[in-house]
């Protein structure tokens, strides 16, 4: 597959770019932050996403969606990143949709229409500790009657309190550390025994700590196979990871462009600060890192779309590289803005905060570099 966007993809990018910059630029994010919005995003905007067709990008055509791939989802995510647009796109339209592809028709019919309409929000509950370690999942689902009883604690459930349904990864067999024996469940927000503690994160997005205290679900709530949830979870996670990488390419690019603009406008010592070679070299190096991140992300998206056997390694490398490059972009961004970079009024700091959350979401750069090493046999 070519490493350049085709005409349709360029059109999608242009319309996503126009949409985000006019409907949900950084000022939109700031507004919702300042009013202390309990969702951390605007439901009205989620509806607009649906009208633009964005929410159905990954939903198969047979299910009423656009049937497009990770390259297309990534195009939208990059614009989301560039504008710091708060939305449930990554969790709902990317990670959850990808998992639901493994669900039976009844469940797909239950959730896809709401996603396509921009009504439904779905969260994913994977992590159980401060760091992302999906293989260590310890939440238990025990057979009970014709269904299951789930108990455990989850955290970093992004937009959990706003979700209509939460995809919960729990253990139906085996012990923490094993990839066999996991099962994914669709858990309704109103389920008895489900409780949540929501917190605002550094980037002003919302995430919940979720307690499952004997939550009863029927057998219909299982997504994929009982005990065979690892493959569905991998699919969900890879979609989420390459999606987060794409969003970070957007966040990093936004921060970088803003910084380069500042270098061409701010004067000190009677010169534009962009004339200083010390800053030029760092700028050029940063540009190279961001370009490499963009490239590996596109490569990983292509490979996922092709079902390539090494896709997982490239996704891990993309999440790691995009994380490192985006992090460099926001750090250089704040530094090169001087005192201005430390002010809340100026946007660069918002990019730094968003980067921190995205880097942590679905595993940080160190975790994924470690996975790359393992997949290379060391």
């Amino acid at each position, binding site marked *: 597959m070519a490493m*350049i966007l085709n005409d349709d993809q360029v059109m999608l990018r242009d319309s996503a770019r126009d949409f985000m910059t006019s409907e949900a630029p950084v000022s939109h994010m700031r507004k919702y932050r300042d009013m202390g919005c309990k969702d951390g995003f605007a439901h009205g905007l989620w509806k607009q996403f649906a009208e633009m067709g964005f929410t159905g990008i990954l939903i198969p055509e047979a299910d009423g969606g656009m049937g497009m791939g990770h390259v297309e989802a990534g195009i939208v995510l990059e614009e989301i990143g560039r504008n710091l647009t708060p939305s449930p796109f990554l969790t709902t339209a990317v990670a959850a949709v990808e998992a639901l592809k493994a669900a039976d028709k009844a469940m797909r019919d239950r959730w896809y229409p709401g996603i396509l309409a921009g009504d439904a929000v779905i969260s994913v509950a994977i992590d159980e500790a401060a760091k992302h370690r999906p293989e260590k999942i310890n939440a238990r689902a025990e057979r009970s009657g014709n269904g299951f009883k789930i108990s455990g604690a989850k955290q970093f459930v992004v937009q959990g309190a706003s979700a209509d349904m939460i995809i919960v990864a729990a253990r139906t067999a085996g012990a923490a550390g094993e990839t066999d024996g996991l099962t994914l469940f669709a858990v309704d927000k109103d389920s008895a025994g489900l409780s949540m503690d929501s917190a605002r994160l550094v980037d002003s997005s919302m995430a919940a700590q979720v307690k499952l205290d004997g939550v009863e679900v029927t057998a219909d709530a299982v997504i994929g196979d009982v005990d065979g949830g690892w493959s569905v979870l991998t699919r969900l996670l890879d979609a989420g990871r390459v999606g987060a990488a794409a969003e970070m390419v957007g966040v990093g690019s936004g921060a970088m462009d803003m910084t380069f603009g500042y270098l061409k406008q701010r004067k000190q010592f009677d010169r534009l600060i962009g*004339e200083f070679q010390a800053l*030029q070299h760092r700028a*050029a190096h940063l540009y190279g890192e961001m370009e490499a991140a963009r*490239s590996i992300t596109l490569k990983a998206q292509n490979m996922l779309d092709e079902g390539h056997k090494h896709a997982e390694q490239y996704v891990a490398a993309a999440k*790691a590289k995009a994380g490192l490059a985006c992090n460099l972009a926001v750090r250089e961004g704040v530094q090169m803005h001087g005192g201005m970079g430390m002010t809340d009024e100026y946007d660069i700091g918002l990019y730094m905060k968003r980067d921190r959350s995205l880097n942590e979401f679905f595993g940080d750069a160190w975790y994924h*570099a470690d996975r790359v090493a393992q997949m290379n046999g*060391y």
Partner: protein
Amino acid sequence: MSDLETFRAEARAWLEENCPAEMRTPARSDDDVCWGGRNFVFQSEAQKQWMDRCAAKGYTVPDWPKAYGGAGLSAAETKVLRQEMARLGCRSPLNSFGIWMLGPALLKFGTEEQKVHYLNQIARGEIRWCQGYSEPGSGSDLVSMQTFGEDKGDHWVVNGQKIWTSYADKADWIFCLVRTDKTNKYQGISFLLFDMTTPGVTTKPILLISGSSPFCETFFDNVVVPKDQIVGELNRGWDVAKYLLGHEREMISGMGGDGGTSAIGGAFKEMLGEEPVLRAQMALFDVDNLAFRAHGERFMDEWKTGKAHPAYSNLMKYAGTELNKRRHELVMALGGSEALEWDSERTRGGAKPRAWLRTKANSIEGGTSEVMLNVVAKRILEMPGA
């Protein structure tokens, strides 16, 4: 079957038929690299056969037009041919500065006569070229170069000195920057070609830290160069020189993506359990290496479709060479004290430390990393200032 798949099948069959078994084993050292030229000593009959057969088929320069010794392949076909060669493990039939550097410049700036003459010689591996750019006082600031060609009607008389001229002592001809107008810095340089056996040309090898002497000081003492041996217009050699540098940087950047840690060899894997910090460095290197390879792929796709920024090869050169230096630092760290041996049999004459030291030149030759960053900042990022 698509045309491309038909071509793949044909290319594969041709390679299987024509590539000698010995040429399908990895090169063991620099000696296994075929450079061609009048004085080249072939390592084996197979090495010569392989070069000659490829030359006859146009496969030493597959994407050049047939009239100039190529096979006239499209970019897509060339890529397929390279994939098939890699699949069979074929060595490169012929390496040369003629192919990588002078060729592209001649294709763009040469006269029809020059193209037919010089390009065919390059394609057949008959003439080996060297590059006379740098001078003792002019490295990064190349345009300040002083080697002077005095106009004598139907020829120039060239006097001056070049330095760091790779393989000058082995090359047959030189493409050389010569000042033909002392009053104009940028538009006072001409791009001349001449035979290294011309009276007045002498070379003196320089020993490198890697222990080899691949490059020389090159002296010109009243060297006569006929007027038809100029590429491009008089005093406009800087345009040719810069265009050629673009290709050179692209070529050097390609070395960065040779392979990840898996290409370093498998033996180290067991020991890494005891070396968590080194293992982490390897993992981050692998991430960067995968990213660099994807970056190179994307760059080529954008280049072919005219979407790449004209100065982009400077960025690739910077990224690729810095990555390659990192790779060899890791090779040395993994090798530990065994990688220190300089000439023992079991280390194939200190292959690791010599290769490691050689890579330090990657970010100097063809323009330093600092100069690459200058160019990226100014031309791509459009940073202000002189």
